[in-house]
């Protein structure tokens, strides 16, 4: 399987474990804080309580924010998947004159500091007279997320033999039939992970939502406002629930895409 000695494997293994711990330490702290009865965290936690979770579940505001976030994330995921599907074909599948340039341009929004992009979009929306709303947020998210989804799908497109499309076409299928019968099913795992990524990134985004959403606040906006003034352990409670939900979504997504890949082990 690999050319590493036991000792090296062990070393790499502990480095990996340390990394995972490092990534999750703040999440663990967050969970602790969310069960702390006191608003002001101290460790060891003097008194545990689940009241913040109860408050979260009872809160109509959080329910609204949750819906807004979800609606925005679904809209962003759907739209960016469609855009990214074609974008990925242009990125990786077709040979055309502007391809190299296109590949670079599409990377730029990903590389761009989001705080600055958010402010630029604020100017832009104001200039066009677009009222801040969840629709504007969807648009703002798309600018950043559609390119990411494009990359995710493009990676799948690279492993795809264009001759398969030609063969179907040659066997009498129309362009539309080729798309439906061959291209879409073959790219499905990539499209699916693009969708999942887009959904989750949109869900977690704050810098682009902040200035564009108007009255339609999302969960990260609520979190940020609460952190700045009016902190309660509801905030880490929501954070903990978010990571759990993300874990469920990702595990589910992983199962689905693994299933899809199993059905079509690449015919090389």
């Amino acid at each position: 399987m690999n050319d590493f000695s036991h000792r090296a494997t062990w070393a790499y293994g502990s480095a990996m474990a340390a990394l995972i711990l490092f990534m999750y330490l703040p999440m663990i702290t967050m969970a602790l804080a969310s069960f702390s009865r006191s608003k002001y965290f101290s460790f060891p936690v003097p008194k545990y309580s689940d009241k913040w979770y109860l408050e979260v579940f009872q809160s109509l505001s959080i329910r609204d924010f949750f819906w807004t976030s979800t609606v925005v994330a679904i809209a962003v995921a759907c739209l960016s998947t469609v855009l990214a599907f074609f974008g990925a074909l242009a990125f990786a599948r077709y040979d055309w004159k502007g391809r190299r340039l296109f590949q670079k341009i599409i990377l730029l929004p990903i590389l761009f500091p989001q705080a600055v992009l958010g402010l630029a979009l604020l100017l832009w929306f104001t200039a066009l007279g677009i009222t801040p709303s969840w629709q504007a947020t969807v648009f703002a998210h798309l600018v950043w997320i559609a390119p990411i989804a494009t990359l995710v799908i493009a990676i799948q497109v690279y492993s795809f033999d264009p001759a398969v499309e030609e063969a179907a076409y040659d066997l009498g299928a129309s362009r539309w039939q080729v798309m439906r019968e061959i291209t879409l099913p073959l790219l499905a795992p990539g499209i699916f992970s693009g969708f999942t990524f887009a959904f989750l990134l949109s869900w977690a985004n704050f810098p682009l939502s902040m200035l564009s959403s108007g009255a339609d606040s999302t969960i990260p906006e609520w979190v940020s406002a609460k952190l700045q003034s009016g902190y309660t352990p509801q905030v880490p409670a929501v954070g903990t629930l978010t990571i759990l939900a993300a874990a469920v979504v990702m595990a589910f997504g992983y199962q689905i895409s693994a299933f899809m890949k199993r059905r079509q082990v690449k015919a090389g």
Partner: protein
Amino acid sequence: MTAATGDTASASSAPPPILQLRGVDKLFGEFPAVDRISLDIREGEFFTIVGPSGSGKTTMVRMLVGMDKPTNGDILLRGERINDVPANKRPTCMVFQSLALFPHRSVGQNIEFPLKIRGVKAASRKERALELMAQLRLPESYYGKGVSQCSGGERQRVALARALAFDPEILFFDEPLSALDYKLRKILEKELKDIHRETGKTFVYITHSLEEAMVMSDRIGVMNKGRFVQIGTPNEIYGNPSTRFVSEFMGEVNILEVGPGPDGTVIDQATGASYHAPPIADSFAGGSLVIRPEDIRFLDDTASPAANKLEGVVYNEYLLGSRVQYQVRVGDAQVFLVEKLREQQLASARGGRVTIAWDAKDSTIFPTARFAS
């Protein structure tokens, strides 16, 4: 449609052409990948296009199936111009080099694909698929199997079955066997020829291996730099290569650069030795003398008479299955390849002194193209 060109007299005995190319070329920028080709392919024949990579054969077949359009010229199918008919509307189909099997579909679904596109009912689709699988010696149990689980040869057969399910008037093959190992390739070459007989369809096959072409084809067209350099039956090509390119392309040959000598002989420009060669024109100024390795003999008795006789040392010996090849060094500069059947293997090979010989009729002269005119 415009009438075909005037070579009808010689073709009268042959079946009518099904596919005709009239001055077809394909330019990529200024570069002609296919250069003004005219060609007739006859109904029911197994026609093979052979050429090295970059010779334009793939570009050509892509135009023939409709994936690309020619820059100039016409492609006629039974006399109808089909330049602008897209691939999915043409009654032809192709087996791809990569086979292009649909990885997300089972063997059965792959074979049924063209029927499904045509709206054939599921039951009769399956019936036809199983029929084809039987014909191609694919076990019935493979029907539901994923194509990725099939071996190379099996996948080859699935691709062929899928193409046959389409029931094309012409079946194109773009080097479909190139990825297979030698032995399997040999088996499939013969199978393909059998299927050609059974179905009676027109096959157009592309390969870079003249050897493969020889086994299967009724006729072979050798391509180089976007043009056909020779078209003919395997025998014609083998026995009478029209240019040095063709003979070189057939495999390893001995080539000597020669100039005109006295009494119809030619003179080796490297060593100054003179050889007997087939008759040459008076205008012959120089060219290549080509001798196949299997046409060179070892003389047991150095005194035996022979048109061309040389002394040399066996430098190395290569076993090629049923045959043996020897590298014989003559003098300092010259190396000859000699090929013998296994039973004629030399007793003491490496380092042994030998006399090699060949007859004038077994060699071919290709005059160098002159620069002017």
